């Protein structure tokens, strides 16, 4: 029995058990990771996971059941069980559920990959992490850490509407960090970001990072931070580097435009959104420099795919255009409730998880400046970069973010290093204060976005560039 056969059997069983719609996904994933510390390998792990998840709609109730067995009998039993669970949902029924009508897609897609990351010898990958962390250690890190992760995922999707799609997505990435223990506190520097940079690419991504070239620098910077002056407290002009901008976009735009949050479906845990659908198309989210797109078609970005996990083909669309909110991240069910005419942002983190609204690649279009021009145009401010901590309220408004490193900016020049930089604000007020934006876009990959119950870990991409904000409160501390 092929994977398509198993998925088809599950869908048919759900229909036979009373479902008016059903879909099923078979997924097979191989995962490999390695961590190193202070020049020695700390852990090596290779995991394999395979199974089938089937979703059924009975009346207005949804049900989902997942099993690791891909045999025909197990697949049919899973379809029946999903329909029974859906029927139980009807005991506390809501308004009638429907799905945004879409053409049934068929097709295959695979991510670009020049060097298969699972085929690179473990010894070579280990040598890289050992070399980089040893170098950091030699240059002053008390704890030098390195990590790489690889995901190799194949999916087969079938729906009762005629979808029939298979995809092969390979993702990988790596990173290093150096920690120095100070007097009562620690300082950390990472390259290119804490726990690494990731994409839907092959091992060539890791080679391009050139970890060892940055190992000494991050250790030296961490040591320098221990004795650097504290980031002053007060209101100032803030320049953010592109890595921190990726986090800013992820937390204060990406999650806020998730349609399931806007509709209240995540109210009890992840929260809702400050956005009101009645303001879609008119609300001023940020300054006119702010153009944010939802684009799962970016080659090699971590949030890229050919089809989402409801079978909707990847399409680029606007979320914020010249500062005005114009788009959401939607699925077929949430779009139908909201009266929107597009979906395409639904994914699950494995065969055992229900597909739900997730970010794809949500990021900025380039601005007209460069980072050096932004610094040169700033008389008095602070430049911060590389995220260290992040906290935001359940409506995605009130945030406080901390960075690993900052520098004074005085009279158009980068000055002394500052430690423990933090800044806080209210999302739309912050974005409306953005008055300079760089053209130097980097597409950052975030492989650890938690959402949903049971928890799912999403992989998202974020095109981001350095930007300047005015009147920002900085230096908050306990």
């Amino acid at each position, binding site marked *: 029995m092929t994977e398509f056969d198993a998925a088809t059997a599950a869908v048919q069983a759900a229909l036979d058990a009373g479902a008016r719609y059903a879909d099923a996904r078979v997924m097979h994933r191989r995962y490999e990771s390695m961590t190193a510390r202070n020049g020695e390998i700390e852990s090596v792990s*290779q995991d394999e996971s395979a199974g089938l998840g089937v979703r059924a709609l009975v009346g207005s109730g949804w049900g989902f059941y997942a099993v*690791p067995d891909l045999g025909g009998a197990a697949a049919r039993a899973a379809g029946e069980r999903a329909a029974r669970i859906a029927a139980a949902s009807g005991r506390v029924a*809501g308004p009638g559920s429907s799905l945004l009508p879409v053409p049934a897609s068929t097709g295959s897609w695979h991510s670009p990959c020049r060097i298969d990351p699972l085929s690179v010898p473990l010894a070579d990958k280990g040598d890289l992490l050992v070399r980089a962390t040893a170098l950091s250690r030699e240059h002053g890190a008390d704890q030098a850490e390195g990590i790489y992760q690889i995901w190799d995922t194949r999916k087969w999707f079938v729906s009762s509407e005629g979808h029939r799609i298979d995809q092969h997505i390979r993702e990988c990435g790596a990173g290093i960090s150096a920690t120095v223990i100070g007097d009562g506190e620690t300082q950390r520097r990472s390259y290119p970001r804490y726990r690494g940079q990731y994409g839907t690419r092959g091992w060539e991504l890791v080679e391009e990072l050139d970890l060892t070239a940055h190992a000494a620098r991050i250790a030296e910077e961490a040591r320098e931070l221990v004795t650097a002056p504290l980031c002053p407290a007060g209101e100032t002009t803030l320049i953010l580097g592109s890595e921190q901008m990726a986090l800013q976009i992820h937390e204060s735009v990406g999650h806020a435009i998730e349609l399931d949050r806007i509709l209240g479906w995540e109210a009890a845990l992840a929260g809702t959104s400050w956005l009101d659908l009645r303001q879609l198309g008119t609300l001023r989210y940020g300054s006119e420099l702010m153009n944010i797109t939802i684009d799962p078609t970016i080659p090699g970005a971590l949030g890229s795919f050919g089809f989402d996990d409801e079978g909707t083909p990847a399409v680029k669309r606007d979320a914020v255009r010249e500062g005005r909110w114009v788009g959401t991240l939607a699925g077929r069910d949430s779009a139908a409730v909201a009266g929107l005419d597009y979906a395409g942002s639904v994914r699950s983190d494995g065969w055992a998880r229900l597909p739900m609204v997730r970010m794809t690649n949500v990021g900025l279009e380039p601005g007209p400046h460069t980072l050096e021009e932004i610094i040169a145009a700033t008389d008095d401010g602070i430049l911060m970069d590389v995220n260290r901590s992040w906290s935001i309220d359940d409506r995605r408004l009130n945030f406080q973010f901390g960075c690993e490193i900052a520098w004074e900016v005085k009279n158009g020049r980068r000055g002394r290093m500052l430690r423990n930089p933090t800044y806080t604000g209210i999302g739309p007020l912050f974005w409306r204060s953005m008055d300079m934006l760089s053209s130097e876009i980097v597409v950052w990959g975030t492989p650890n976005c938690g959402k949903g119950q049971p928890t799912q870990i999403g992989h998202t991409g974020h095109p981001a560039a350095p930007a300047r904000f005015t009147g920002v409160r900085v230096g908050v501390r306990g």
Partner: protein
Amino acid sequence: MTTPLDLAGQVVDLVRRLAGPGAEAEVSAEDAEHALTRFANSYIHQNVAERGTTVRLRLHLDGRTASGSSTVVGADGLRNLVERTVAAARNSPPDPEWPGLTPPTTPDGAGIWDEATAAASAGERAERVREFVDAAGGLEVAGYCRTGWREAAFANTAGHAVTGRVTEAAMEGIARCDGADGAARCGSVRLADLSGVVLGARAAVKARAGVAPVELPPGRYEVVLEPTAVADLLQNLAMYGFNGKAYNERRSFAEPGTEQFDRAVTLVDDALSAPALPFDAEGTPRAPHALVEHGVTTAVAHDRRTAARAGTTSTGHAVPDRAAAGAIPLHLGLLPAESPNGTTRASEVSGPVVDSDAAALVAGVRRGLLVTDFWYTRVLDPRSLVVTGLTRNGVWLIENGEVTTAVRNLRFTQSYPRALAPGAVLGVGRHATLQSWTFSDAWWSAPALRLASWNFTGGASG
């Protein structure tokens, strides 16, 4: 039917055959079913269940170590798991700190099992959701009810083999009233312990009492933290403070032998009282483990690797798939103050205060804040354990021992150990409630807590 112990034994045999008698291997096998019925806008919108078996193998061969896992557990799948883990170990760099295997040891019990919870249907979960919705009296509600069971076995090439099984159930939800949310939650090994009626009513009372909040200026306030908020303290203390790996690397504040906390603080990790297996990921039997006794830090949590580095023995805190994260006490509890009449539960009270325990603490506060939940807490510095986060699901001003008015959510930036430092704890509730952690299998046991000072650094508007 193949049991988890059969699977673990098969993998141990395969290791011996494919890697030779010198290989050291530890294998865990777990068969589990988890189901979760989720509601929002007062109806069930997601309803999921999964059944699966996972086998994990850690192998030490010729001085090198590798790990692997698989959900493909037929004969071919297990052979593939062993072959690729053997190959990975042979290609890995040397592991000079391999701590060896757990010797044969007998755990204390086999876990807590409730047949009715193991067999719970989607209909039974939906019934509790119905109760929650109805008890909220027309307010919009959201939350979940979940049930699950796990049967697990551990075996290693040193001849150690143990089994255990456990059930778990949890329900939590919010009620929403004119922009105010009220929350209630409960966890147990038995679904029968969960009442949608009680939880829905409590959430609704809190939501109604949270309407029309005032905005208070940031600053230091005395606080009464309800058990739901105290759970966040325990989570962060467990992850960053009492983690043996963080301790070894000097990233933790913990200094065993030092009076780092108020005398009212006693912290014990006790997996045997929670819905947890009686052994850890390395097969080490779990037992109650005191981390702080009457304010004095006494220990941290260790797995075999962190213990070897610290020159001690494992305390049974190895976490599956989390070697890099360290050894974490995932069943941490703050011991409640002694109950004079020996009751095991606090009683219900009227108004927004969660129960009679918290109400007794509120009664002693001249001016302060009552906090239901902390939300999105993140560590600014692990060593000082300075954490930022927000309040959620209800904050109220306390004046002269009475709750007087609802307050808008506040942001805080606070060192958790400093908040619990000697002289800082003004009262501990007499009963602890069991709560599951949103993002993992951890369970926290927390009473209400009255603290002299909490550093609020921002209001709802920035």
